[in-house]
């Protein structure tokens, strides 16, 4: 576990960000990324650098390329241009410093695996080729299940878990990866209130431990409560920065266009004045 006192340092560092930033201090930087599916562009020249040690929401309308942004940045899908640096190094060299949580629908939950099996998969990178997980790895996987409140379900086949429980298993797997940067694709999609609370607690703990966390998020009403920073996308980079200054009606209008009812916008800007 990381020293808790270090999180304060990160915040200090962040607010006083000097003009000459050392690229090795930037946890996750994407330069000019363009992605197209079947000749139809999804993302145009998106450049972005994630603030270190912060919890950032990636928001934008449906089809804005939020999931695509994460997948392409990780090199999981082909892109036309753009590159990703993690602490100044090309991402493919430092995959172990990044943990990625795919959407729950990305996998087959009928797979013959138990909850602890899935969490153990997060440790495969550390275990390496050819070797089998040891008791130590099993212990660690169990600890991660505990921290999302799923220890009682360790030996349950994953298809017999509820949606929220499945999402928590995914989260435990990401924790097991013990990375410095966490990229999560809609962890809150279709989960119950208890799971939502558990996930938020884990995200906060990660940030307190000095990790950098990026989350694709859908529910605009909770953005202000959960996150300190946002990245707004709508095929292009619209805006990014701290919630207080960036999560404004004006920026949202730009990202969502007519798709966001004006009453919704009013509600959100009222919240920002409060």
């Amino acid at each position, binding site marked *: 576990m990381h020293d808790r006192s270090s999180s304060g340092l990160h915040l200090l560092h962040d607010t006083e960000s000097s003009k000459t930033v050392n690229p090795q201090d930037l946890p996750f930087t994407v330069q000019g990324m363009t992605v197209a599916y*079947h*000749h139809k562009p999804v993302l145009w020249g998106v450049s972005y650098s994630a603030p270190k040690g912060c919890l950032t929401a990636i928001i934008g309308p449906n089809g804005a390329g939020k999931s695509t942004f994460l*997948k392409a940045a*990780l*090199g*999981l899908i082909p892109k036309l241009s753009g590159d990703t640096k993690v602490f100044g190094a090309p991402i493919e060299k430092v*995959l*172990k410093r*990044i943990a*990625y949580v*795919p959407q729950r629908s*990305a*996998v*087959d939950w009928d*797979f*013959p*695996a*138990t909850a602890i*099996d*899935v969490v153990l*998969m*997060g440790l*495969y*990178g550390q*275990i390496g*080729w*050819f*070797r*089998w*997980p040891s008791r130590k790895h099993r212990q660690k996987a169990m600890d991660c299940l505990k921290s999302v409140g799923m220890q009682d379900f360790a030996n349950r*086949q994953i298809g017999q878990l509820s949606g929220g429980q499945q999402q928590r298993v995914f989260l435990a*797997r990401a924790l097991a*990866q013990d990375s410095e940067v966490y990229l999560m694709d809609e962890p809150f999609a279709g989960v119950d209130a208890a799971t939502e609370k558990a996930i938020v607690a884990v995200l906060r703990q990660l940030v307190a431990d000095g990790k950098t966390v990026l989350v694709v998020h859908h529910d605009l009403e909770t953005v202000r409560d959960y996150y300190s920073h946002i990245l707004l996308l709508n095929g292009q980079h619209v805006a990014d920065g701290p919630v207080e200054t960036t999560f404004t009606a004006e920026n949202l209008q730009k990202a969502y266009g007519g798709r966001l009812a004006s009453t919704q916008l009013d509600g959100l800007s009222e919240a920002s004045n409060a």
Partner: protein
Amino acid sequence: MDIFLQFDLPSILLGSLAALACGLLGNFLVLRKQALMGDAISHVVLPGIVIGFLFTHETSSWAMMLGAGGAAIFAVLLIELIRRIGNVEPGAAMGVVFTTMFAAGVVILEQTGTAGVHLDVEHALYGNLESAIWLDAYSLSDLWNWQVLMTLPESIKQLFVVNMLVIVFIVLFFKELKISSFDPLLSASLGFSPKWLGLSLIVMVAIAAVAAFTAVGSILVIAMFICPAATARMLTDNLKVQLFISGIASLSAGLFGYLLAAFGPGLLGYEFSVSAAGMIAVVAGLQQVLAMLFAPQYGVVMRRRRQRAHASV
């Protein structure tokens, strides 16, 4: 006894080993929703087999297997290429490549005059299981005699080696095959390329398919890639246990399938026996049906019973 050793045992070994090689790999095909890949690959490898045969002029040679492996790799790369350039869905690309390569194999087969030898349609469908004989065996002690063992038919020895390869492949890459089958995105992000793992799985499938194909024909090959794995899946939620169960299901299908084919009609008073490869596939299918009906957790019977118990509460 010596009749059993000379005529029955080799056929049982051949059928069981062919079933085992395909049955074990089938687990991963079924989990990756590529169950019919075994079928497709057994067609794609035809030009490779024929070219291998042209080099050595003997069936069940290693050259044929190399040709098959090469043809499988070629097919997978070609599918990827067509998918990218032609901008079509993977299923369409597969359809184009599989049929074209099979057709090419048939053309080479006919044009080079090899069609009459051993590579004909009947053998392709039903295989050559009953023709395996081991004339050097006279007593049970021969089973421990290395020199006599080495006189086993070439196809059995070859399948034995292929099974060893398959088992080593699965043990070495168990973790990697598991993660890339379950979650390709995570697998890729951890540095275990699902593409390379998928390709190596397909090459192993091609090798197993060819080794089994020349011995027992394509019907058995297709059945064995799917049935034991699907049977085992009904009985457990643990992938390791599933692999063991599928192995046992494959071997027992080989054993009982042959025994039923050879002696079943005799027990009923008929003077003939039926195709052993066909009967092995039938037994594998029956295993699947039994598992679907009576599996403790997923079987229809137990599920009904649970529902009824639930309803009466």
